[in-house]
């Protein structure tokens, strides 16, 4: 259960963020300069790799109880944020993430920006747009992969899950040469939110000194219970017919 859950949570979290980063890179490359956009992607991945390489060994040096308390708390906060967003979208109180719309907005902004050469980069705008997209979308995923991996004592499996997700999404982006608008981002976000909240609850409470009835088997209860609770909230918060909603379309 734990290894499978680790793989699924990291893979889905990474895939969701990779879809969003792909949209930004596609806009930068299509509207302006592919070479600069891809250089930005490479630079962003190098920055993420340096962060992971630096943070990974540091995390493994922290005593397990403290690691579980701090990491559990952070995962719980992240998980509740992901769940909150997914439930607001599922219940119609927030606009669904529209990759086509985001692509059109980024494309329009990219087409009007001025071209500026900086060093070996022929188009600085494309470079920085892709670089920021990869680093900002990737940072949370890098943290999730590292913390899940270090708590489960299986950072290689977390890394394999993260890299697999990036490869699958990038291959999809290259194949369709368009934003991956059909990916069920909100459902994936919901599953990741449930996983992060469950593991955050389990590790956080354990790090704070609590003992779970059934030990690791408690996770088998937490995951479906939180999933049912989230689905129940999504259904309960759906407005009755005739109610007009005013929602924001933020990320």
């Amino acid at each position, binding site marked *: 259960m734990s290894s499978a859950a680790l793989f699924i949570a990291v893979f889905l979290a990474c895939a969701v963020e990779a879809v969003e980063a792909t949209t930004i890179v596609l806009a930068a490359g299509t509207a302006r300069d592919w070479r600069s956009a891809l250089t930005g992607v490479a630079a962003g991945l190098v920055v993420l790799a340096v962060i992971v390489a630096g943070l990974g060994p540091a995390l493994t040096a922290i005593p397990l109880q403290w690691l579980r308390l701090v990491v559990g708390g952070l995962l719980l906060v992240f998980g509740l944020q992901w769940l909150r967003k997914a439930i607001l979208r599922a219940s119609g109180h*927030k606009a669904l993430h529209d990759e086509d719309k985001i692509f059109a907005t980024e494309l329009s902004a990219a087409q009007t920006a001025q071209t500026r050469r900086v060093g070996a980069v022929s188009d600085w705008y494309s470079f920085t747009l892709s670089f920021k997209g990869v680093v900002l979308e990737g940072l949370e995923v890098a943290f999730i992969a590292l913390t899940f991996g270090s708590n489960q004592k299986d950072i290689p499996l977390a890394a394999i899950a993260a890299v697999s997700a990036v490869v699958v999404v990038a291959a999809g982006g290259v194949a369709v040469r368009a934003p991956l608008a059909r990916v069920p981002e909100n459902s994936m976000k919901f599953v990741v939110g449930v996983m992060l909240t469950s593991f955050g609850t389990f590790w956080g409470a354990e790090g704070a000194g609590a003992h779970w009835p059934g030990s690791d088997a408690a996770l088998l209860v937490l995951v479906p219970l939180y999933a049912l609770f989230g689905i129940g909230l999504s259904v309960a918060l759906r407005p009755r017919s005739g109610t007009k909603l005013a929602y924001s379309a933020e990320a």
Partner: protein
Amino acid sequence: MVISRLKAFYDFWYDFIVGDDWRVAIGVVAALAITWGISGSSFPAWWLVPAAVVLLLPYSLWRAIRTS
């Protein structure tokens, strides 16, 4: 210039760690602190964090819907 960069740095980390609703972050920290406090006693403490989730998530959703 320096202040605006420091503010941008602070805003990035605040958004990254705390996110849309600071009450959730405070609630999680409080739940873990109380769990820590009572875990030394003979009273079981494992249920506190799930109970906090069950209270915090609907509360945060309710606030988000009310203010939208």
